């Protein structure tokens, strides 16, 4: 009975805390995206610019590590048995990508644009080596260009 109680407690805790953290994170993401909307962030490798007008070009990197909660991990485990889209991981990766992009944009404070933006993900943590998802890292990087004013 003890095992079952712990299991159900973890499940409830995972669901409660996970949902709360996710909502909070999304609120923060929305706000900051709004604030940084003015900064053009594009994936194009080359842009036609007058070199004499470029003040600086620097590499900007933003990265974040987010863990999935116990409930969603279990849900994904169940999904692994039957197959299909693992919806419970969608928000995790979506948040990670957007947070990494935001951090990169915040890093490029004062830039006129960021070009050649790339996003990569990887799994971190003990479980990752066993082929399971532990925590996910998203890393976004690009070249921030500052024009002479």
């Amino acid at each position: 009975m003890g095992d079952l109680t712990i299991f159900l407690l973890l499940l409830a805790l995972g669901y409660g805390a996970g949902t709360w953290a996710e909502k909070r994170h999304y609120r923060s993401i929305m706000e900051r995206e709004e604030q940084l909307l003015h900064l053009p962030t594009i994936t194009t490798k080359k842009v036609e610019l007058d070199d004499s007008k470029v003040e600086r070009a620097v590499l900007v990197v933003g990265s974040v590590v987010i863990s999935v909660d116990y409930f969603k991990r279990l849900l994904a485990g169940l999904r692994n048995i039957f197959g299909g889209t693992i919806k419970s991981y969608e928000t995790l990766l979506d948040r990670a990508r957007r947070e990494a992009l935001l951090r990169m944009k915040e890093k490029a404070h004062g830039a006129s644009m960021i070009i050649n933006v790339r996003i990569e993900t990887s799994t971190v943590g003990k479980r990752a080596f066993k082929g399971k998802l532990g925590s996910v890292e998203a890393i976004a990087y690009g070249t921030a260009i500052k024009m002479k004013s």
Partner: protein
Amino acid sequence: MKFIPRRPTGNINVTKTSAIREFLALAGGLLAIILVLYLSLGVAVEILVPHLSAGIEQAMAVNLLPRMMGKEIDDTKSRELQPLLDRLQEHCTKLPYHCTIKVSSSPKVNALALPGGTILIFSGLLDTLTSENELAFVLGHEMGHFAHRDHLRGLGRGLVFMAISTALFGPHNQINRLAARFLNLTELSFSRHQETAADHFALEVLHCTYGHVGGALTFFEKLAAAKHSRYNKISFFSSHPLTPERVHDLQVYSRQRGFGSGKLTPLRDNL
């Protein structure tokens, strides 16, 4: 090209879904599949067990026995009790194989019927017995399990079920443990019918050997008394549930068959 700062509408990368509903559907589906598997396994075991030859059973036992018996086997006591078991099975039972008795030095008050005809009796149970008749009843009861092949039924279903859940999810996982909890109960109630049948068998053996069934009821009374005083947990009851119905059934069966009570043969002191 002009840059227009604009937020995308909606989020295509995140499906709007109820995680709880998905969880219930998946977990429910999984449990249902396990349940169907388990039930069909039970049927499969019922079909299989009567056809399982004594030879196959003994071949299986070679691998199973060392793990089931543990290490604390008292060979001296086992040898001393063997003649009694031989006496019981020689004239009064028809078992497909020759049974052997093993005494395990353990405070547990229990006896088990192991595959291949080995009766494992714990010294804790031996200590509570005072007469040979009581011991004969216990041995007869376990032989009853052999005769009805109950020991294989319990074993077969358990083994196959564990094998399947482990093959699906690995040995350690919560789903497996959770499912096992529900299913153990069915196994217990399944055993209760078998207990009564084994009791009847034991009464027949007792009457055949001693000419009376004295000792059968005193054994239960003693265990029930021990349950309240000396021992917190009598494990005999966990695998052999003691209910008022069971004792009542013993009395009724004895009366129907015309089995009376008689003089008890005392057990030797060193046992």
